[in-house]
């Protein structure tokens, strides 16, 4: 088989194919950097063009895009704090906190190198594991897949943060959001208010953008200064390399987690990224820096997410079962070129297999190098008033959200999730557990249901299941046993309870409590099987939010002054809401120019000439991008009449 390695690299080094690979990489990097638009959007945009190319050239173009998305998204996550794609949310948490401390170069350097390692490991495993991977994938029945979801949830418990009740409430909110939509086997459609839009459940892109991205944009509009109050210096790459070498084994382990996440169909890059991040926290001796800018969080997440998207290709090539959404489109492209991946692929098309591996490896390395080259220039952008960057970002997020169904529902959902994310940020609820809960809710329910349907309860005694339970509990028990001899630092009660009585926290706790209570009564009308997942969130969620509300009410006097920032940002949030409603009424093309004008002149205080020029450029680019994305911008109810 190895005799095909050289012909394949020769085939790839053909100038036209290399050019296609680079075009794919360029598109992948741009979409990786744009929040809300990621691998799926990049690959779908390229898809129509590959039909004009020969098979190897077209596939190389797609692979170029797939391989760099999770490298380039690091830039946005670190510099702006809005995740460039859902799977880099941990990078946005840790990397952005580091950027605020002036360590953006370190965060970016580690992120790029970890992404590269993840990509290369993915490529290596793609090459050598295919003969081995078959039996492994086939050894994993639905009960084992269910246990993996539980492992993910278990790891997520390390992200709950300093205040347990707020962390739990956030996690339950995430699981609840994940239960919206079809129950197993479509027996019930939960919490859909009879809206067709909700029949498929909520889109991960929109939930991630809303929870993390919108709140950042709002505070950018409201502030106006830079990230670390001035220029973010991205010059000293040395620290990045040193940190990378220091954490090489962590990155390697996380890349393995990522590869494994790719192996298993239906576990996306987001889930394995969170598992890797949780692993980094668990394996750390001083986990208290996580959430405040710990480079290990960046290393773990970036090592994992790139490895996952590459090894998503393993089940795709081995069984024609795509490991993730971008891999699904890649599979479609393979079909179109007349390749039907399956167990015989390696013997029938060895050269194609090598072409895929080489493309991925080459793109991973060159992608990281390009990121190193462009990051300093992009970091200089952060010197600009923040509202200047926020303006195009808002448009891109709206566009990204609109890709999931191309209906107004996407816009409203982005606004709603943005409102929740904003309130969580100001009420000091950690947003990571909410996203993890959301990501894992679906596989958890699906595999639990299938396991019970196929095996009854006997699946609990399957050897694979017992091994996973053992591996999960062993370090936990070890730690518990060890901690009997050590006295841990006690976090001060005052710090833990800070902000509990703030009006935002009171309002959020009350809203979530009411939502949970309503949902509980609503869930009584569902069949017992469909109630399980929501009840997992609601039954513990109701007392926790109740507790938050009561504790908050008792401290309301102490914390009543803790909200100037929230009050200051409120008008910006309302304006964003107004913009979405304006899109609904008159359409994107009429609503956007006034909104952009407001952002540029009122928020960023631009001068009239430069503002007009800049505004025209971003409006034109957004219309252009919408038309490239094929579905066109939303028209609004009265838009076509005007």
């Amino acid at each position, binding site marked *: 088989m190895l005799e095909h390695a050289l012909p394949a690299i020769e085939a790839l080094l053909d100038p036209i194919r290399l050019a296609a690979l680079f075009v794919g990489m360029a598109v992948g990097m741009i979409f990786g950097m744009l929040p809300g638009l990621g691998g799926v959007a990049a690959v*779908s945009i390229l*898809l*129509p063009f590959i*039909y004009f190319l020969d098979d190897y050239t077209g596939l190389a173009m797609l692979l170029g895009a797939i391989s760099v998305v999770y490298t380039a998204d690091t830039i946005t996550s670190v510099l702006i704090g809005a995740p460039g794609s859902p799977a880099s949310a941990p990078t946005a948490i840790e990397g952005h906190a580091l950027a605020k401390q002036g360590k953006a170069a370190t965060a970016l350097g580690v992120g790029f190198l970890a992404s590269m390692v993840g990509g290369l490991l993915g490529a290596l495993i793609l090459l050598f594991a295919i003969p081995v991977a078959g039996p492994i*994938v*086939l*050894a*994993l*029945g*639905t009960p084992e897949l269910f246990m993996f979801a539980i492992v993910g949830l278990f790891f997520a418990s390390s992200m709950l943060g300093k205040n347990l009740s707020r962390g739990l409430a956030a996690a339950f909110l995430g699981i609840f959001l994940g239960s919206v939509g*079809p129950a*197993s*086997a*479509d*027996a*019930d*459609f939960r919490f859909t208010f*009879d*809206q*067709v*839009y909700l*029949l*498929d459940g909520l889109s991960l892109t929109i939930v991630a953008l809303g929870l993390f991205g919108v709140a950042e944009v709002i505070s950018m509009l409201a502030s106006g200064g830079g990230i670390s109050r001035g220029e973010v210096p991205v010059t000293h790459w040395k620290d990045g390399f040193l940190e990378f070498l220091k954490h090489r084994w962590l990155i390697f382990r996380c890349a393995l987690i990522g590869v494994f996440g790719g192996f298993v*169909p*239906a576990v996306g890059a987001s889930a394995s990224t969170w598992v890797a991040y949780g692993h980094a926290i668990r394996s750390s001796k001083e986990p208290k820096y996580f959430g405040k800018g710990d480079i290990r969080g960046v290393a773990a997440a970036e090592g994992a997410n790139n490895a996952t998207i590459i090894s998503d290709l393993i089940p795709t090539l081995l*069984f*024609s*079962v*795509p490991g993730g*959404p971008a891999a*699904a*489109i*890649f*599979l*479609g*492209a393979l*079909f*179109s070129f*007349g390749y*039907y991946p*399956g*167990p*015989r692929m390696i013997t029938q098309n060895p050269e194609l297999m090598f072409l895929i591996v080489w493309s991925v490896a080459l793109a991973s390395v060159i992608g990281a190098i390009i990121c190193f080259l462009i990051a300093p220039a992009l970091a200089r952008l952060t010197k600009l008033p923040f509202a200047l960057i926020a303006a195009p970002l808002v448009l891109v997020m709206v566009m990204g959200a609109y890709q*999931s*169904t*191309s*209906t107004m529902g996407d816009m409203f959902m982005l606004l709603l999730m943005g409102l929740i994310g904003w309130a969580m940020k100001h009420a000091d609820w950690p947003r990571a557990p909410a996203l993890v809960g959301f990501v894992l809710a679906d596989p958890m329910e*699906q595999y639990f*249901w*299938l396991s019970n*349907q*196929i*095996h009854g309860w006997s699946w609990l005694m399957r050897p694979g299941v017992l091994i996973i339970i053992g591996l999960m509990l062993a370090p936990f028990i070890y730690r518990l046993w060890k901690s009997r001899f050590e006295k841990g630092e006690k976090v001060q009660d005052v710090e833990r309870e800070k902000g509990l009585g703030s009006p935002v926290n009171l309002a959020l706790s009350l809203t979530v409590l009411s939502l949970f209570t309503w949902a509980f009564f609503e869930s009584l009308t569902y*069949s017992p*099987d469909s109630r399980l997942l929501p009840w997992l969130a609601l039954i513990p969620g109701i007392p926790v939010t109740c507790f938050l509300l009561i504790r908050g009410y008792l401290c309301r006097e102490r914390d009543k002054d803790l909200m100037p920032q929230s009050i200051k940002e409120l008008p910006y949030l309302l304006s964003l809401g107004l913009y979405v409603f304006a899109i609904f009424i008159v359409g994107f093309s009429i609503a956007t120019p006034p909104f952009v004008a407001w952002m540029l002149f009122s928020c960023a205080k631009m001068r009239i000439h430069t503002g007009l020029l800049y505004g025209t450029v971003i409006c034109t680019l957004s219309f252009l991008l919408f038309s490239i994305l*094929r*579905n066109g911008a939303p028209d609004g109810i009265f838009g076509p009449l005007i």
Partner: protein
Amino acid sequence: MAILSTAIFALEVSAGGHFKGKTIEIVVPFSPGGATFVSAKFLEPYLEKHLPGNPDINVVDRPGGGSILGANWFEKNAKSDGTTILFTTSSTANPFVLGKKGVAYRLADYRVAYSHPFSAVAYTSPDTGIKSASDIKKSKQPLVYGGISASASDLPGLLSFEVLGLDVKSVLGFKGRGPARLAFAQGETNLDYQFTPVYLTQVVPSVAEGKAVPLWTGGAVDANGNLRKRDPIAPDLPSVYEVYKNLYGKDPSGIEWDAFEAIASVTYAYGLTAYMHPDTPQDVLDAFAKAAAAINADPEFQKESKKVTNGARLSAGPATEKAVKSALSASPEVKKYLRELLSTKFGVKF
């Protein structure tokens, strides 16, 4: 000037007129990369080549709501000149036939431009001791079928079990036919249906290795419009009709068979159908019927389709439209039977 305009006029006439310089938008209500999207892209160059005026074809995905969102979009936005097409499967047709909530499209009123079969093959595990379709009632193990959702593309498969009177445990809730096939390979299920391209490339090798036993196909529509013929994609395998006749010694009949025939026709025989606005003029439809015939005769199409679908052909014209429309307009008894079966046996709520 006059000469020039005459020349342009002549050019248009000689090109056949309809779609010169126009763009036809083919809306696929599923994600790109899915089987429907791939099929639409597969047909795209042939339609561009054989439709009069060589229009530009633009395949657009509008996923969501299990295809209902995209079909509802089509209902609101389709143009009636044949430049907007809804290309979809039984996942759109079944909710319409069942009258599910949220369906705003009038599928049975739409014109049918062309249609492509989307056949499926049933197969079982050798561990059941079953050697061929005639042994199906003698399984050594309880039969377990893995599927996605009773009211979508699994429906004809589940109805075939009803017609044949099989005791099958149906485990629904997989996220796709791929994961369901993996569960079969893992031994968690032992009865499965797969659509043609996947059957040919993934299951046929397993049959050769002795890991799968092919059983039957849904069948193909005969000259009288009945779903009785063997499916040309797997001519060695009996149709469900034949299996029944073989098991029970008589023709299948009754409400189970009527329901199966209606649902299986729109799922398999007319599995991928291109719909147009109800007011589309007849000459546009005729142009598509002509193009479909030309595509079927195109040696390149024949060569490529041999690889993918074992040589399936497009169908179009009045007979096809009549068959699709009659399958979509199931009788009230069939609808009632389906709704009752789904709600009592599979817990589907309406």
